[in-house]
């Protein structure tokens, strides 16, 4: 999804946030800016600090140092209930003794809105998330996906300055995840609220976000549009974490890496030196049947060939004993069997090189 966010939200600025738990830095100088109406996804493995960052923004955690500004106002020391943020949690956050409508009305009631206004807004929000007919149901009468939709409606009902999504899809089935993921993006674009979305699922992050920030050990490794992040990773961690990556030994000359019998341009930030390891995506490698006498740099033997629905994957071992994963059209998978001799080559996309040590 590549829709552009509307510019009616509020800018958010996190500056040099630090948060240490028992000697371990959950946030180590995190600086992040969200444009008005933008959806930024924070992506990273467990313990990288992404949830801590979100909780600091919500006011549920206090940073040890650093500042948080929302709409130009410093909210660093402001309590959660005064921050005007809507939040959707991983799961089970609906108040179980209230119906869906009562859940959505709750925040409005706390803001002193009269009954008629609450009713109207709740109906509008439940309609937005497609649950008008479930307004009188309790949490235990709804599926996980429906509960999360109600949680989203509840968070948006108060017209928050910022919407915070803390892995809202992680407890759902794969199919529901995809549906709700697209739904969240549609709604976010519709309401135009600046949104921070925390997830450990790269596909989710790449699918919904205007920009994705990859975090590791409390730091932001790279913040970029999904396509840029995927095609031009700035660090080995980002290249490894986002998408599949082949690590292939290569020699460097004149800014190009010689690999699999061909050469690829190197991305900015690549390691120098005559010998490096280049990080090449499976779709950045070509594969074809080998002739009888083929034994060049790109020759390899098929280890496995898998049909994966929308595409296929071939894994082959090179003469230098490197395993290379290649993405192929799903119609081509049946052409390869384990033991077949093939020829691999780089497609020519720029790649990141890291030190061979």
């Amino acid at each position, binding site marked *: 999804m590549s829709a552009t966010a509307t510019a009616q939200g509020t800018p958010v600025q996190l500056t040099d946030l630090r948060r240490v738990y028992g000697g371990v830095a959950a946030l180590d100088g995190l600086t992040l800016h969200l444009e008005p109406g933008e959806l930024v996804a924070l992506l990273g493995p467990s313990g990288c600090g992404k949830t801590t960052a979100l909780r600091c923004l*919500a*006011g*549920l955690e206090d940073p040890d140092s650093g500042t948080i500004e929302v709409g130009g106002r410093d909210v660093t020391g402001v*309590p*959660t*209930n*005064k*921050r*005007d*943020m*809507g*939040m959707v*949690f*991983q*799961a*089970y*956050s609906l*108040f*179980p*003794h209230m119906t869906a409508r009562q859940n959505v009305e*709750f*925040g409005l009631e*706390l*803001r002193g809105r009269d009954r008629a206004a609450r009713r109207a807004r709740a109906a509008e929000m439940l309609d937005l998330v497609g649950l008008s007919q479930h307004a009188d149901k*309790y949490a*235990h009468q709804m599926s996980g996906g429906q509960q999360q939709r109600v*949680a989203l409606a*509840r*968070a948006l009902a*108060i017209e928050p300055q910022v919407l*915070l999504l803390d892995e809202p899809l992680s407890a759902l089935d794969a199919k529901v995840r995809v549906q709700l993921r697209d739904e969240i993006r549609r709604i976010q674009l519709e309401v135009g609220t600046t949104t921070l979305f925390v997830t450990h699922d790269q596909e989710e992050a790449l699918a919904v976000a205007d920009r994705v920030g990859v975090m590791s050990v409390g730091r932001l490794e790279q913040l970029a549009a999904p396509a840029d992040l995927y095609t031009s990773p700035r660090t080995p961690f980002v290249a490894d974490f986002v998408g599949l990556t082949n690590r292939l030994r290569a020699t460097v000359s004149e800014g190009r890496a010689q690999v699999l019998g061909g050469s690829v341009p190197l991305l900015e930030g690549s390691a120098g030196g005559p010998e490096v390891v280049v990080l090449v995506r499976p779709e950045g490698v070509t594969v074809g049947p080998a002739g009888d006498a083929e034994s060049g740099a790109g020759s390899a033997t098929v280890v496995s060939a898998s049909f994966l629905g929308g595409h296929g994957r071939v894994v082959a071992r090179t003469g230098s004993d490197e395993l290379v994963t290649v993405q192929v059209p799903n119609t081509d998978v049946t052409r390869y069997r384990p033991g077949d001799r093939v020829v691999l080559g780089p497609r020519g996309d720029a790649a990141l090189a890291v030190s061979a040590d």
Partner: protein
Amino acid sequence: MPFFAYTTVFLLIPTLVVVIGAFLDGDNRFTLGNLDGLTSPSVVRGLVQSLVLSAVTAVGGAVLGGLLAYAVSTARDGSVTKRFVTSLCGVLAQFGGVALAFAFIASFGGTGLLTLLLGKVGISTGTGFWLYEWDRGLMLVYLYFQIPLMLIVFLPAVEGLRPQWREATETLGGTTWTYWRRVAAPILLPSFVGAMLLLFTNAFSAYATAKALVSQGSPLIPLQIGGTFTSEVLLGQENLGKAMALEMVVVVAVVMALYAWLDKRASRWMQR
């Protein structure tokens, strides 16, 4: 099958014996005379005093045990304090009868250790006879096992409160007071009342502790039932005893039906 056999032998058959016996006279003929006996002043007084004792210790045990349960729930999972308190309560909730009565006599009786120690610092607890009365004495002694029982029964409900509910309340603009008043209290109420009902039946059916402590008369209905079977003064009262037992069964059945309804409601809210 073993459960069915167990409940048949220890619940169904005794209940049937009580129900049938309540409607038979000494010659095993049908009569409603035993039920008439339930309206006699001494039996009515015994029932009322049993209900008062049970209600007071249920409310007191629920409030104090509920507060203790909350305090324990705030301790870290697996911490020594938490394990110690829950294990101790598991034991104390079952600590009753002669042993408990003796413990209190040794502590609060006329020459009890605490009575003497308090006396030495100028605090008089009287003669110590209050301990043997059904109201003040038994209420204190019953609380000794009611509070730990409340903790055991109520702790899972308190621990079932999800942190997300508090955080959601805060992000929606609520305070800690809002959370307790609008979210936590309504969610805990069915469990709290259910646990209190369980405490009520626990006290209502307690026999051994009262028997060991109360020596003057039979101020409670379980003691009166016991008296109809063991008294060497009043003979041929067994079927009246069964009628009184039937009365207790009815009270407990009503209370447990209410408990089951509340428990169902609470567990529906707490399910994942």
